[in-house]
């Protein structure tokens, strides 16, 4: 029970700190999960990786984190804690904003948040890459997938499956 309350606390805080999208809180999520729930960085990155196989918002992977900590109940608590606070805030702030109309400060806030959220996403890339890129083989796979993602319209899930098959034979 204590664990579930802690999970709810951690993920509702992350929900409200997720400026510019969910990926921005990846490094913070990793360090908090390690600190409070003994989820190692390697477990975190593996869970993040397999979470990318699911459709929809990519941060749904938080459900796997909750599941790792406290089973199905953990997943449900995390789902509510991570999605409800920011959604309610957005609902009411959005209504207020539409009523007030466009003001110069909203644009200022949006421009100010953009580089911060990109910086945080770069930190997310750094956190995941530290664990995911273990040598030339994984770097090669990442490079090929990256080029294909930018240059072709192949469904990302197919690329993930192909990468899994390739690494099965390479490693």
């Amino acid at each position, binding site marked *: 029970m204590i664990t579930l309350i802690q999970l709810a606390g951690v993920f509702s805080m992350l929900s409200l700190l997720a400026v510019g999208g*969910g*990926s921005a809180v990846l490094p913070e999520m990793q360090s908090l999960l390690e600190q409070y729930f003994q989820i190692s960085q390697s477990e975190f990155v593996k869970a993040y990786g397999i979470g990318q196989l*699911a459709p*929809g918002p990519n941060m749904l992977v938080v459900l796997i984190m909750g599941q790792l900590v406290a089973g199905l109940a953990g997943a449900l608590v995390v789902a509510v804690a991570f999605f409800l606070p920011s959604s309610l805030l957005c609902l009411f702030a959005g209504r207020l904003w539409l009523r007030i109309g466009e003001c110069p400060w909203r644009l200022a806030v949006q421009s100010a948040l953009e580089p911060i959220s990109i910086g945080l996403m*770069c930190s997310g890339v750094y956190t995941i890459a530290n664990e995911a890129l273990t040598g030339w083989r994984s770097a090669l796979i990442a490079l090929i997938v990256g080029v294909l993602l930018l240059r072709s319209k192949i469904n990302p899930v197919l690329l993930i499956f192909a990468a899994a*098959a390739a690494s099965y034979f390479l490693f």
Partner: protein
Amino acid sequence: MNDRRLEATATISLRQIFAQFLFVGAISFGGGIVAYLRELLVTRRQWVSSDEFMVLLSISQTMPGLNAVNLSILMGDRLRGGRGALVAALGILLPGACVVLGIGTLYGIHGDHPSADRLLAGVMAAAIALLATVTWKLGRRALCATKSLALVLLTFVCMSLLKWPLYLVLATVLPLALFLYRPSAKNAE
């Protein structure tokens, strides 16, 4: 004008909203949800105009939380109020949530298997490529202007190298960024 809007959207049922968002939630892989929503809601169904979509999108990007979920909330609210927001958010999240929980359950069973680890090494390599390319696509503009590049680097250094907690990073960088982008400084960029 408000009345005309209400008239036009009064015919859209909660079930229709749920179905549209459920569809996008089920077919959008590797991000790009916003593009799917625009295609379906603006181009095909014409539930909102392109301008209105952009307004809702920019609000959803300003607020904390996932852009796709925030956009669903605002769009649902615009179409059918609070209940519309609820069904839209559930629709966008449910398919992925079921898949994620299914994968999580399998992973729990097979997690320690050495051959699963060999597969996972490739999955992780692909996941980092996915995250890096999304970051690049979203960040290309911010990375190419001096002012924003400095803020990107400052955020990254505080978060990843100095390992500050996130609230401290935001409390430090956000006031600075707001100062740099304050309304009167608009023509400085």
